[in-house]
């Protein structure tokens, strides 16, 4: 059993003692600071670090908190208004890059990107929407891909495996042409439970169960709040 070493860091002017080498996101949340995340999921090591929504300032430099292991003496800023602006900007860019039409999306109410937009008080993107046309992939037996909504977080490609431990999803192409695809042979063999797991793992509505959707009443979805339910 490895020995745990405690070190001191400063977060927004407050000194706290933390486990050396721990993820900065974990450390901040333990300290009661709810740094926003999208691609991050608990206990994933190494972290995905794809979305950059968890931007904080460490020793004067903006970094993704999920990719940073804490070390002694770190000076961390989370509460500065310009950081909130930066985090919201990242979310707005994600909305501008894809075609996120929440009103007709099966994931609405359970979508982590939508929830982040609500949380940040976002009403629109300051950046011009690209309105790029992305394809839908209906070839799966029980799953389909709605690439207009994919934020390329890599949760499905890196964290999801079938019952035999094989990966089912991967990226094809580079840069702005990158698109998620799935191994159709392995998808066809997925159990019901595994299909549901893939859908739940996707933070947006890019991986869908075919023939299903809108099966949870408004008011029972993860992000429903009284003020959001009439939107």
């Amino acid at each position, binding site marked *: 059993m490895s020995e745990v070493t405690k070190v001191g860091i400063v977060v927004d002017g407050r000194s706290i003692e933390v486990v050396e080498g721990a993820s900065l996101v974990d450390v901040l949340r333990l300290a009661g600071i709810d740094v926003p995340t999208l691609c991050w999921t608990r206990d994933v090591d190494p972290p995905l670090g794809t979305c950059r929504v968890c931007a904080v300032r460490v020793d004067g430099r903006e970094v993704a908190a999920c990719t940073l292991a804490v070390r002694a003496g770190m000076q961390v800023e989370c509460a500065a208004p310009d950081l909130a602006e930066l985090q919201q900007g990242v979310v707005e860019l994600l909305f501008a890059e894809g075609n996120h039409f929440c009103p007709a999306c099966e994931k609405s109410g359970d979508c982590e990107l939508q929830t982040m937009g609500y949380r940040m008080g976002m009403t629109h993107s300051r950046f011009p929407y690209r309105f790029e046309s992305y394809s*839908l992939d209906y070839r799966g037996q029980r799953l389909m891909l709605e690439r207009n909504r994919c934020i390329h977080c890599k949760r499905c490609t890196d964290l999801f495996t079938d019952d035999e431990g094989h990966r089912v999803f991967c990226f094809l192409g580079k840069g702005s042409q990158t698109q998620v695809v799935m191994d159709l042979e392995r998808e066809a063999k997925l159990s019901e439970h595994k299909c549901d797991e893939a859908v739940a793992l996707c933070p947006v509505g890019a991986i869908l169960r075919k023939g299903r959707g809108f099966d949870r009443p408004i008011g029972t979805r993860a992000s429903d709040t009284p003020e959001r339910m009439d939107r």
Partner: protein
Amino acid sequence: MTETRKIVIDPVTRVEGHGRVTLLLDEAHQVTEARVHIVEFRGFERFVQGRPYWEAPVLVQRLCGICPVSHHLCAAKAIDEVVGMSDETLTETARGMRRLMHYGQVLQSHALHYFYLAAPDLLLGVDSQPALRNVIGLAALDPELAKRGILIRKFGQEIIRATAGKKIHGISAVPGGIHKNLSPAERDTFFQGGEIPSVDTVIAWCSELIEHYRAYHARNRAWIDGFAHDPANCLSLVGPDGQMDLYHGNLRCIDAQGKRILDDINYHQYLDHYAEEAREWTYMKFPYLRVLGAERGWMRVGPLARINVCEGIPTPKAQAALEVFRSENGRYSHRVLHTHWARVIEMLHCAERIREWLHNPVLQGEDLVRKGGFHPVGIGFLEAPRGTLIHHYEVAESGEILKCNLIVSTTHNNESMNRSVRMVAERVLGGQRDISEGMLNQVEVAIRAYDPCLSCATHALGQMPLRVQAVQQGEVVQEWIR
């Protein structure tokens, strides 16, 4: 030198969506042409293509903010067929929840139209001050009536919220059923009243509203009956016994004298009987019955058509009101302003139906969704507030929508609406050199009677001035701006 005039009413106000009227007058100031232009384009039929079929009931309803429930349910009826189900094979709870939602929708939409859009013309006068000719002016004139209008609408919206999840653009109708039932607590709010009136109060208010319109008619019979009288073919769904059924049934079309043109056909056969004509000056098509051709095959739909088509109304108070209507106006009425009378009778019918369903314990059932085998075509019909609504989808086995055809109520009424506009324009404006705002408003009154939803019909909202131009040899020689 001849002088012709072109009058443009743009936009038509107090309707849902954006339209324009063009009237051409010759040198003798007689109307030579009258057209209702639908100047917005929505294009839902196209961009539904490629989407997954289970998304259709939620996506397509976004074409309207007034009658989304009608589109939600009509699409759901069509998509039920894609998953091997039909209205007859849904669970009792699903069918009941959907019907309750629909009656709430028709009630609130009719209340919106009657109190907010139509009543200001009727009660304040078609030539009253435009600035006061609205629901605010109505509230100043008759506060109790305006309050009831607002509360009846709110009641209908709360029915929708309880059944669909929210008042506008709910999501509960899913392929093969519904995703929620009605809890006893939700149900009891409609019995008890409070912020909204109880269902018994709504029924009482609707009954009084019919008497209110009837008394208004008695005082203004010459104007109402003479406003626009245009015999028309009438189309609607009817129940198996020919009774009014706003949600499901067979398709019946009668001519102006009541002779059957479509004799309670299964609505899945509609393509055998329908054709559509496109005209270059409007985005809205002109549907007609093939058997009569484009010239004579146009149809009227909506409250007045339904009142004419049905044998009776299967709720007692509304049936009694229908009998009074027929005793005073004859078995078949084609007087366009009687549409408002028919509309308030339907409000009473909906309120009565809502009470029946609220008392039905099947709405607390847990059996909500059923599915059968895949079917590549789904067709849904229902009677939306403004008339017969059609959703037709073709779907690949993969789940992708390949084709979508929407024929909405306002499209059904296109020819009828244009004829009414011409009729009123000829009567009110014909031979008149000086045209007042009140005269132009009467043209709008003819359109409003149909409660057209122009955004639905073309698959923008805005506030623009009413503009009238007198055009001489291509040049504007006189202009009125409201």
